[in-house]
């Protein structure tokens, strides 16, 4: 049984159709990279899977462990183990990281039948996960993402991912805007979380990230559909040749 099965997914934002028959099957333990030019639908895919109501699914299905994912509210998806690392994490002035993390972890653990952590255990858990993802920023006493640099925000996403322990994590261009050191730290964090019962969908514009997070599969998303799939060598080929050869190939097939 696959962890995630997306079949013929169509989605639009306002009147514009962006996903036009997207198919993908992800099994536990796998890392899938999704690459593609700007406007191909990469971020739309991430938003639709996380349940952002600005995007409307017009056809197709997505099953998480054989259960209809698209019927679930965003919080149900999170509690069932779907995690989206946002491309642009939202700054939330006034909401302290500690209160936010306590509330989020509390909900997720409750759903999974785990007992609530007391204050001491909670702080120890935070400390452990911070070390795991090499997050050095002091979170206590700061508001969620407020005043964080771009790199800190991305690292904070990976930290939250470690805290919530999802079974399916979607990284939406987590690498963009990161310098090489930050990129390595983010990738290390992800690699430490990899396991046989977790899966990752890594959405990226650049091959660079895939030197650090080595994917099992690479897919090219173009014009709302996956047009080519392969292994990590495909990413290298894309880096070298750009996307034009794929477009050309497609036009040839069409003609």
């Amino acid at each position, binding site marked *: 049984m696959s962890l995630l099965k997306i079949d013929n997914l169509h989605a639009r934002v306002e009147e514009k159709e962006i996903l036009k028959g997207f198919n993908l099957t992800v099994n536990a333990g796998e890392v899938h990279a999704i690459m593609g030019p700007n406007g191909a639908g990469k971020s739309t895919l991430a938003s639709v899977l996380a349940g952002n109501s600005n995007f409307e699914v017009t056809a197709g299905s997505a099953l998480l462990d054989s259960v209809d994912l698209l019927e679930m*509210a965003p919080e149900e998806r999170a509690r069932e183990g779907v995690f989206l690392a946002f491309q642009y994490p939202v700054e*939330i002035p*006034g909401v302290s990281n500690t209160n936010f993390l306590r509330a*989020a972890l509390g909900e997720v653990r409750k759903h999974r039948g785990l007992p609530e952590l007391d204050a001491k255990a909670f702080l120890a858990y935070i400390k452990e996960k911070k070390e795991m993802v090499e997050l050095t920023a002091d979170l206590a006493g700061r508001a969620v993402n407020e005043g964080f640099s771009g790199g800190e925000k991305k690292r904070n996403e990976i930290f939250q991912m470690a805290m*919530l322990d999802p079974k399916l994590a979607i990284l939406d261009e987590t690498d963009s805007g990161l310098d090489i050191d930050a990129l390595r730290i983010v990738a290390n964090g992800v690699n430490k979380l990899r396991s046989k019962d977790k899966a990752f969908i890594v959405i990226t514009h650049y091959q660079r990230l895939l030197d650090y997070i080595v994917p099992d599969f690479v897919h090219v998303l173009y014009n709302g559909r996956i047009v080519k799939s392969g292994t990590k060598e495909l990413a290298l080929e894309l880096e070298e040749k750009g996307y034009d050869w794929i477009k050309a190939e497609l036009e040839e097939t069409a003609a």
Partner: protein
Amino acid sequence: MSILKETTEVLGHLLEAMPSDSLFAIREEAASFLHEKGIPSKRHEDWKYTNIKRLFDHGLTIASGEGQETRDEGIVPAPTVQFSNSSVNRNFPTIDGVTFNLFSDASELNKFIGKSGIHNKQELAALNTTLFTDALVIHVEKNAQPTQSLLIDHGVSAAESEFLNSRILIVLEDGAKLNCVHHFHGEAISDNSLVNHVTEAFIGANASLELNFLQEIGTGNLVNTTEVNVERDGRFTTNTVQLSGKLIRNNTNVRIAGQNAEAHLNGFYMIDGNDLYDNHTLVDHLVPNCQSNEVYKGLLSGKATGVFNGKVHVHRDAQKTNAYQQNKNILLSDTATMNSKPELEIYADDVKCSHGSTTGQLDEDAVFYLRSRGLSHKGAIALLLTAFASDVLEQVSDEGLRAVLEEKIQSRLFGME
């Protein structure tokens, strides 16, 4: 006895209702001010959105004061003075350096009543000055700084058409400090009654007064006027939290009369249904090197109406004034209305004054972000709105009170749609 809509009749009734005591001259001044101005209607700029005259038109009966004892546990564990409607319970607490009296005890301090001149400036305060039967008089002696807060528990049980006038005078000598918690509360208050409260406060040099107002009066109507005079190096803070009431109007007027003095005015309001809450502030900067800071924030839902009018008057001599004001509102429904008006009058040329006013909706991106981490829709909204209230609540120095306020706001948030 009713106060009728015609101002000539108002005066007649007032003169009749007015207690003849040592304050007679001031009460007469107040009555003639009212005679000239009348009960403010919506044509009156200061009462444009807040229809107080409706209550007078419907007919109000001047109530003698005592209501039923509604007291259970005070909102915070603190020495308490109990108001029952407009009458003060004589059972005063004992606090070092603090003296409590009633106006009727003919205290030495009675001469301060009306000294601020508020009864010649604002109609409802004039009405109060004419009609109040007794007042609580609080004196804090020089350099006395009690560590505990003083709870002033205003238990209200106004019946149909009752008009209650309660009054407090606070005098802080030089170097004194006092933290007051005014809790206006009551169940099943008639929506045709009116509570008209006035606090006059005189803050001596290097003295510090904090007045916290928690207003939760169910279906009642409240006009709460606070008139404060701050001397050199003095500090005044007021934090107002409005949680329930059909109509609540706060008039907060601060006269900064001595150099290096500060005024901090903060408010948080949650309005729903057809209720209306109105905060009118006036900060009068008379002298140089002072600062004032105002933060008013509110959540409006249903068909609620909010009003904020913040006037800052920087007089010609008040150079190096720092005056900052902000009013932020979140509308949770399409049918709620906020009327926000900063009013800066600046006659000095070397000052820093700013104001900001925003009214908007909840940040949906933030809601989605929180939900994507497992918080429920309601939980996400409550967390965001609690955060919205936090910079007002942070100004409340009594930690126990702050915790109670946070809890009350939280439970209101979870109940709001």
